[in-house]
């Protein structure tokens, strides 16, 4: 169906729907499009519902353009063609979406149709609050949206507009405008698009730069945002090579990658002996495993994470590294001639301080009411730690050098005991139900964070471990364990988990 077929005798009409988030310049883009159309003698109308302009809201801007026939030119200019105020499903020629899920929304609302619509969408994500605030991973699946976008458009032009915006030092509306011009979906030459930018007189240079990037990106194949790639860790030291050989010789192949990462991480975290201990623990599980060795592969990941628990030494260690400062400079886009001050927000409570002390001493303080009462006020306030100052850097540096003392610390004793109890449970379960044992391994995911978050994680972990022993009648124990784990990640107050456990 072509645009004209519904009103065969009528003038040519084109419609453009723009789906953007508040603050992305969708209105500016809509104005530019109208300017181009009017410059070619078309009648153009734009509508929108700006109302709630806050950044998180999604907004539809709609532009209609009608090529005036002889009749209108001869007639009254105040008798314009009758234009619609909102895109009608099945009647949209071009959709421009500033974000992947907004492209998805255009498809969902039927604005993009397979026989007609040129769908221009960014492939990057701006996560919605529901996706961001999940306690685990609540992100929507990009694959399904990309698939739907390709199926339900005549042509799908997709690229990471945010990355292009960055590269061009421009704004996303200019990129979208460039892509619209570059798509060739509108019968207007590139020059008139650029004239519209010039005519608006604001940030002309950077907008034109963005326009050009967008124009060219529209000629390319579909491209997705770059994801962080983790290389298969390659050993650089003698110890590294020895441990690699041991992994390759004694662990099943599916566990190799995670085990290599694990060993690398634990050597950095504590040292070779600690990494050896990790492998020893892992081997005891591998011995009970069979193809496809999911249990071992998962254990390799989760054991490494648990063994590299975040104590004060670890945090200090991560903060003082040279690579970290470089990363911060990059992240905040510090220019070479700018000075950078970095302040950390730390709040070591008495508990964390005692955990770093030798186990006996830490226990003694935490066990004594008088001492806790005396010392607690000293550690109640958060500290603004300016890592770029000498005093604070030195303090963190000294803390990070306490690594050799770690095995004697209270926290070490506590964590190793927890890990051993967990692994005992895993091994014991693996003898009769490997799938369930794998689920128990995965429960490590519940323990994360610091302070209250960490304690909540421990509580949830204990509740899940307790609950999975008694699956409701007819439920597979492994599925039950997975369900409990998901419930523990459903809300902060543990309501969903409590409900699930009570219902069982």
């Amino acid at each position, binding site marked *: 169906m072509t645009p004209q077929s519904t009103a065969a005798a009528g003038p040519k009409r084109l419609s453009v729907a723009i789906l953007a988030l508040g603050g992305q310049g969708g209105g500016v883009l809509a104005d530019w499009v109208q300017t181009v159309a009017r410059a070619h003698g078309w009648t153009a109308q734009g509508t929108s519902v700006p*109302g709630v302009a806050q950044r998180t809201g999604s907004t539809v801007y709609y532009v209609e353009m009608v090529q005036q026939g002889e009749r209108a030119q001869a007639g009254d200019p105040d008798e314009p063609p009758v234009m619609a105020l909102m895109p009608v499903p099945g009647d949209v020629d071009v959709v421009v979406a500033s974000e992947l899920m907004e492209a998805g929304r255009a498809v969902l609302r039927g604005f993009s149709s397979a026989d007609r619509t040129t769908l221009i969408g960014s492939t990057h994500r701006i996560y919605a609050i529901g996706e961001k605030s999940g306690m685990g991973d609540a992100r929507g699946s990009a694959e*399904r949206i990309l698939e739907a976008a390709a199926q339900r458009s005549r042509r799908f032009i997709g690229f990471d507009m945010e990355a292009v915006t960055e590269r061009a030092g421009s704004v996303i509306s200019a990129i979208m405008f460039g892509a619209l011009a570059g798509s060739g979906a509108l019968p207007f030459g590139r020059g008139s698009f650029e004239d519209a930018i010039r005519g608006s007189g604001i940030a002309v240079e950077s907008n034109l730069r963005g326009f050009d990037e967008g124009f060219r990106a529209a000629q390319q194949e579909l491209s997705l945002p770059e994801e962080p790639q983790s290389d298969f860790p390659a050993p650089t030291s003698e110890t590294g090579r020895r441990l690699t050989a041991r992994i390759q010789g004694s662990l099943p192949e599916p566990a190799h990658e995670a085990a290599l990462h694990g060993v690398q991480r634990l050597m950095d975290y504590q040292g070779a002996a600690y990494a050896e201990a990790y492998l020893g623990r892992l081997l005891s599980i591998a011995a009970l495993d069979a193809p496809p060795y999911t249990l071992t592969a998962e254990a390799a990941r989760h054991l490494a994470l648990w063994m590299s628990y975040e104590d004060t030494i670890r945090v200090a260690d991560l903060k003082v590294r040279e690579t970290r400062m470089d990363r911060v400079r990059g992240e905040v886009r510090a220019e070479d001639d*700018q000075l950078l001050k970095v302040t950390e927000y730390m709040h070591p409570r008495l508990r964390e301080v005692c955990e770093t002390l030798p186990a006996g001493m830490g226990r003694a303080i935490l066990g004594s009411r008088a001492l806790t009462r005396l010392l607690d006020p000293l550690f109640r306030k958060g500290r603004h730690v300016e890592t770029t100052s000498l005093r604070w850097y030195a303090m963190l540096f000294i803390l990070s050098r306490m690594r050799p003392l770690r095995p004697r610390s209270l926290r070490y004793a506590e964590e190793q005991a927890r890990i051993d109890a967990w692994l005992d449970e895993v091994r014991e379960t693996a003898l009769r139900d490997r799938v369930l044992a794998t689920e128990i391994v995965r429960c490590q995911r519940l323990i994360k964070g610091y302070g209250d*978050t960490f304690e909540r994680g421990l509580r949830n972990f204990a509740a899940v471990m307790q609950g999975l022993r008694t699956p409701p009648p007819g439920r597979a124990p492994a599925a039950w364990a997975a369900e409990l784990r998901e419930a523990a990640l459903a809300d902060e107050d543990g309501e969903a988990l409590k409900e699930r456990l009570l219902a069982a």
Partner: protein
Amino acid sequence: MAERSFKKEVEKLKLGAGERFEGEGILAVTKALLQSGVAYVGGYQGSPISHLMDVFADANDLLAGLDVHFEASASEATAAAMLAASVNYPLRGAVAWKSVVGTNVASDALSNIASGGVRGGALVIVGEDYGEGSSIMQERTHAFAMKSQMWLLDPRPNLPSIVDMVERGFQLSEASNTPVMLELRVRSCHLTGEFTAKDNIRPEFTVSDAAANPQRDTDRIVLPPANFLHEVEKVERRWPAAIEFIRENRLNEWFGPQGGDDRGTEGDGAIGIIVQGGLYNNLNRALELIGLSDSFGNSRIPIYCLNVTYPLIPDEVRDFCLGKKAVLVLEEGQPEFIEHELNTLMRRSDIQTRIVGKDPMPRAGEYTAQVIRDGLGSFLRDWAPDIAPQQPRSDPLPAEAAAQIPGRPAGFCTGCPERPIFTAMKLVERELGPSHVSADIGCHLFSILPPFNIGNTTMGYGLGAAGASAFKPKDKRAIAIMGDGGFWHNGLTSGIGNAVFNKDDTVTLIVDNGYSAATGGQDILSSRAENKARTTQHPIERAVRGVGGKWVRSVNRTYDVARMRDTLREALTTPEKGPKVIVASSECMLNRQRREKPLKKKALKDGKRVVRERFGVDPDTCTGDHSCIRLSGCPSLSIRPNPDPLRQDPVAHVDNSCVGCGLCGEVSHAAVLCPSFYKAQLVSNPGRWERLVHKVRQAVISMLQGWDGRARAARAF
């Protein structure tokens, strides 16, 4: 200072006869008012008519030159009462607000003005906030027009029609001595288009002329016996006069074939459509998609377009319906007042035409072209099967794909000073358990949405405290929220005064961001900024104490989460009785950025020392629990894939839109979250001493890092 400057738009108001005006619908109305010789304008801002208010506020010189009085009214009731100027004097006046909420607020004055009637043309411009993008309850202004006997205009949504209807509205008002409402739907207010301008007209009689020559006519005052006379006058004189004017001047329109065997089919199969003017474009598009019209509105089915939706013109209706088997009425919202009246008219005239409305058409929801197409299709299949379209086949996106698309509820802007207030409330909630929270209207209402999920009810603008007044606590106090805009709109009396008088034991949190922020950042009484045209800087705390508030605390930096939390905790637990009022003040970040950004840019350009702050997250210490996000919801605080190959949950991430408000750091302290947040201060053009200190520090730190690096290499994998 409003959200943006409207200097460019003000220029459009100056266009003279024959020049082309190009711009938004609501701006066209603004121009049309000046072309109609309006003597005074007032109103209360709100979507979708804010621009009208903002443009007038920026057009001081132009208005002064034309002797037009403009006022940013304290509330819609104030605006409506202002129309009193047209009662005794030949002054054309217009007021504007968001409807139906604004009309609710204005209704007392509206009833009075409608009862006594007017001498000069009085126009009420209502932005009908209905359908997609609306932020209020879905009701019809139509009901108000009917019950007060005010005429309701609903012009076709294109600029020439809208502009024409403004002028006709004044004439109609004068011809019938009745105030007239002009209803514009959200999208009509924001649609862009063109029309040929006319010269602005200086009012022949001005507001100062009126003040200088006071006139009195007790028959115009609503007091017995005049009020009974008004009722009779409405029915016997003003109504017929209006009908006469509307008919004479053909305010309603007809499209498509008119006459006996219209719509191209023979005799008794004739059908027609009666449509509200504002829906005409959508109707035509629906017809076009079915193949029954074209881009220029050449419909094959006769259409009677009601640019005046109240009152109906019985003769016109009768003539249109006569000889037709069925007529479809397109009337958005419910109850279907027009449909009811059409049926009454049919019965009275004993015409057998079937009026079809809310049967094929849905009872609720916006009448988009799509909705009309579906309803029209069903109507045609029943009454004109020969031209009816096929039942459309639907092919929705499969559920698994649809489920991936997240909702995007509105939220606080980046750096919003209201966010930390709700973070503090969340923290107190963890300690003391949840309280009943009576929310108000304004940006702060976003607290009811994720991630805060705070707020149990909202009863209307400025009514937060009043909404909590029934909760007389034994040990748990209810919390009321109120914005500074709502406070001055009516909250001071309806909320604070009421709570003092009735000895309420509630906590009221007044969110003072310095502007009427949700409607576009207009100044209000307590705004901190200097405003040449108005007086500002009247502190809220003083007003609260002035009506007898005793326990009043001001927090002057809302970003101080710990202080906010402690103050709130104190308010909830103090043994003191009576209302507890907390005024939490920090400037709206949107407005602040708008003011400061250009200044910083200039300072940078001039080579001055400039510090930019922003936050960041270390991905290697972030464990992906997202507690920080649940306590903030800032758009610049997001997530990204975990760079750690072993971890799977995404890590928190601060993007470059961060304005460094400081909340992230305060939260991680106050809630004891995690050590991953850092604040980065980027110093451009640092001084010489500063540079030297930095160099020395850097040298020592580099040395230590080198040492650390070597040690690390020694135990490297």
